[in-house]
C-alpha cells in the first residue's frame, strides 16, 4: 500500500501546477536580479501585487490589460494545438486595429450597433489575413512560420507607421507642426460600454466568451478535432483523409483573427483611436508576446488561459508601481516573462516522465488485480 502523499505527488494535479512552480522559480531568479540591482525584492513584489490587485481601480486596470492577452493567448492555443507556432500576434493585432479603425472613421455617422460589430468583424478579418498569409506559406511552401510571422510583424508596423503619418492621420494634426502620428478620435458613440465606474469595458467580457467559444471549437466540433489531429500527427491525419495543408493554414489564420480582434477591442475599448511611436510595442503593449506567455502558462488550453491572462495582466499593471517603489524599470516584467516561458517549457520533460510513470503504475496495478484467469492457463497448456 502506497503512502497517500506519494499518491498525491504522482497525481495529475501536480502536473497542472507545473506552470505555477515554473513561475515561482522565475520569480525567484528575478528576486536575485533585484537584489543585485540593489532593490529589496520583498518591497518590489509587494508593490507589484498592490499595484495589480490592491484596489478596485487597479483590479479594473488589470482586467483591461488582461483582455488583449486573453484574446491573443486563446489564439495562440488554436495555433499550438494545430501544430504551428504563432509569433505574429503583434502584427495581427496591428492589422486588426487598423481595419477596425478604418471602419470607425469611414462610417463616422453610422449607428453604433451596426458600426461597432462591423469594426470588430473587420478587426478579426485583418488578423485572419495577417495570420493566414504565413499559414498558407507554411501549408503550401513549408516556410517556417516562426520566421515568417516575425517578419509579418515588422511589415505590419511599417504599414501602420505609413498610414498613421500619412493617409490616416488626424486632420487636426495636419495643421499642427508637431504632426503626432495618430488618427482622429473615433466617434464617442462607438466607445465600448463601461462595465463599472472604472476603465473596465465590455471587451473583457467578450474575451472571456471567446475563450469559452474557442474551447468548444477545439474540443466539441469536427473542425477543432481535425485541427488538433493535424497538430498531434500530420502523417496520421493525412492518412485519415484530413486536408492537412488547409487545417495548418486555418489554425494560423484563426489564431490571427483573435489577435486582430484584440486590436479592434483595444481601439474601441481603451484608446478610441490608433497611434504609433514607431514601434509595435508603443501601440500593442507587446500583447502579441505576453499573450504567448499567458497561453503557455494556461497549458495551451483556452480556459486555462483566462486566469493566466489575468495574472500576467496584473504583472504588467503592477510593474508601474514596482518601478516607483524600488526604481527598477518596468522592463523587468518582460525579463520575468521570458524566464517564465523558458521555465514552463523546461518542465515538459518532467511532465512526460510522470505520464510514463503513471502509465507503468496503472499497468502494474491492473496485473495485480486481474491475475491470468484459470481458463487462459488451461487454454495455453
Amino acid at each position, binding site marked *: 500500500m502506497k503512502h497517500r502523499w506519494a499518491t498525491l505527488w504522482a497525481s495529475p494535479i501536480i502536473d497542472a501546477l507545473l506552470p505555477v512552480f515554473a513561475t515561482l522559480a522565475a520569480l525567484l531568479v528575478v528576486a536575485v536580479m533585484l537584489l543585485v540591482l540593489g532593490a529589496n525584492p520583498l518591497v518590489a513584489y509587494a508593490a507589484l501585487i498592490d499595484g495589480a490587485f490592491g484596489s478596485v481601480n487597479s483590479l479594473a486596470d488589470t482586467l483591461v490589460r488582461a483582455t488583449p492577452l486573453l484574446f491573443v493567448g486563446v489564439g495562440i492555443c488554436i495555433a499550438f494545438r494545430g501544430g504551428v507556432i504563432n509569433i505574429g500576434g503583434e502584427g495581427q493585432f496591428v492589422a486588426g486595429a487598423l481595419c477596425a479603425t478604418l471602419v470607425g472613421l469611414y462610417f463616422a455617422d453610422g449607428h453604433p450597433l451596426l458600426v461597432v460589430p462591423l469594426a470588430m468583424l473587420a478587426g478579426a478579418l485583418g488578423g485572419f489575413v495577417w495570420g493566414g498569409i504565413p499559414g498558407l506559406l507554411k501549408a503550401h511552401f513549408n516556410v517556417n512560420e516562426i520566421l515568417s510571422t516575425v517578419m509579418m510583424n*515588422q511589415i505590419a508596423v*511599417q504599414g501602420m507607421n505609413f498610414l498613421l503619418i500619412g493617409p490616416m492621420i488626424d486632420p487636426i494634426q495636419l495643421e499642427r507642426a508637431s504632426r503626432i502620428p495618430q488618427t482622429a478620435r473615433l466617434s464617442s458613440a462607438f466607445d465600448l460600454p463601461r462595465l463599472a465606474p472604472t476603465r473596465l469595458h465590455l471587451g473583457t467580457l467578450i474575451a472571456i466568451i471567446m475563450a469559452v467559444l474557442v474551447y468548444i471549437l477545439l474540443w466539441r466540433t469536427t473542425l477543432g478535432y481535425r485541427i488538433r489531429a493535424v497538430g498531434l500527427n500530420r502523417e496520421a491525419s493525412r492518412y485519415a483523409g484530413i486536408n492537412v495543408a488547409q487545417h495548418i493554414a486555418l489554425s494560423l489564420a484563426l489564431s490571427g483573427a483573435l489577435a486582430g480582434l484584440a486590436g479592434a477591442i483595444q481601439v474601441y475599448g481603451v484608446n478610441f483611436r490608433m497611434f504609433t511611436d514607431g514601434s509595435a510595442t508603443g501601440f500593442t503593449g507587446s500583447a502579441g508576446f505576453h499573450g504567448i506567455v499567458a497561453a503557455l502558462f494556461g497549458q495551451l488550453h483556452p480556459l486555462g488561459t483566462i486566469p493566466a491572462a489575468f495574472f500576467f495582466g496584473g504583472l504588467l499593471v503592477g510593474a508601474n508601481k514596482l518601478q516607483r517603489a524600488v526604481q527598477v524599470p518596468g522592463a523587468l516584467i518582460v525579463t520575468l516573462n521570458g524566464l517564465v516561458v523558458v521555465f514552463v517549457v523546461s518542465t515538459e520533460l518532467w511532465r512526460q516522465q510522470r505520464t510514463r510513470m503513471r502509465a507503468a503504475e496503472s499497468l502494474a496495478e491492473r496485473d495485480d488485480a486481474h491475475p491470468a484467469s484459470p481458463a487462459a492457463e488451461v487454454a495455453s497448456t
Partner: protein
Amino acid sequence: MRIEDVILGILTSGIRLATPYLYAGIGETFGQRSGVLNLGVEGQMLLGAFAAFYVVRMTGNLWLGLLVAILVGGLMGLAMAFVSVTLRAKQGISGIGFFLFGLGLSDLLFQKMLGTVQTVSGFRPVAIPLLSQIPVLGQVFFNQNLLVYGAYLMVPVAAFVLNQTTFGLKVRAVGENPEAADSLGVNVARVRYTTVTLGGMFSGLAGASLSIALLNVFQQNLTSGLGFIAVALVYFGGWRPWGVLAGALLFSMVNALQLWVQVLGLPIPSEFAVMMPYVLTIVALVVAVQRVRPPTALTKPFVREG
C-alpha cells in the same frame, strides 16, 4: 550627387551592414547543423550589444567590450543548450523565452545604468595597405573596421571547420542522424552544447558589432528583428556558411539601398523602404525552402534508447 557615388555608397555600407548578419548567421548555422534551432539569437545579440557598449563606455577599452559581449552571449548560449539538450524543451518556444529575456534585461540595464542614449567611439576603419589604394574596390572592401574584416574571414573558416574537420563531421552527423552518431561513440549532447554555446558567443559578437563598431550607440531594442533575420538567413543559405554569406550580402545591400532611398529623398515613403528587407526575407524563405532540405534532426531532442 553623382550616380557613381551613390552606388559606391550603397556598396560600402552594404558590405559593412552584412557584419552582424554574418556573425549571428554563421553561429546559428553550427547550432542548426547539429540539430538545435536557437531562436534566442535576437536576445543574445541585445545583451551582447549592451554589454559591449557599457564596458566601452566605462573603460574605453574596445577589446574588453568585445570579450565581455562574447562571454555574455556564450552564457546565454549555454543556458539555451541546457534547456534544449538536457531538459529537451521545445526549441521554438524556449528560444522566444530567451528573446524576451534578452529584450527585457537589455532594456532594464540600459535604463538603470545609462538612462539616456549615448555614443561611444567604436572600432574605426582600418585601411589595408596597398589593397585600399585600388580605385573603387579599395574603398568598398578594404577600408572597413576590424570587425567587418573578421566577419568575412569567418566564412571560409566556418566552411572549413564544418566540412573538413572531425569536429565538423561530428556536428553534421549529430544533426542528420544522432542515433548513428551516438552508436559510433560521438557524444551527441557534448557536440550540441558546444555548437549552441558557440552560436551564443557569435550572437554576442554580432550584437557588439552593432553597438561598438557600426552604430556606436545603444538603445532599447537596438537590433529590431535583425537576430530573427539572421536565423532566416541560415534557412536561406541552405545551412552552409557560403550560403549565409550570399544571404547576408543580399540583405545588407537591400538595407543599404533602403537607407540611401531615405538619404536621397526619393519619392518612396521611408516606411516602405524599411519594410523591404522583411518582405524580401519571406520571399527568400519561400525560394530557399524549395531548394535545400534542413538537417534531419533539426529541433528534435535526442534520447538514447534502452
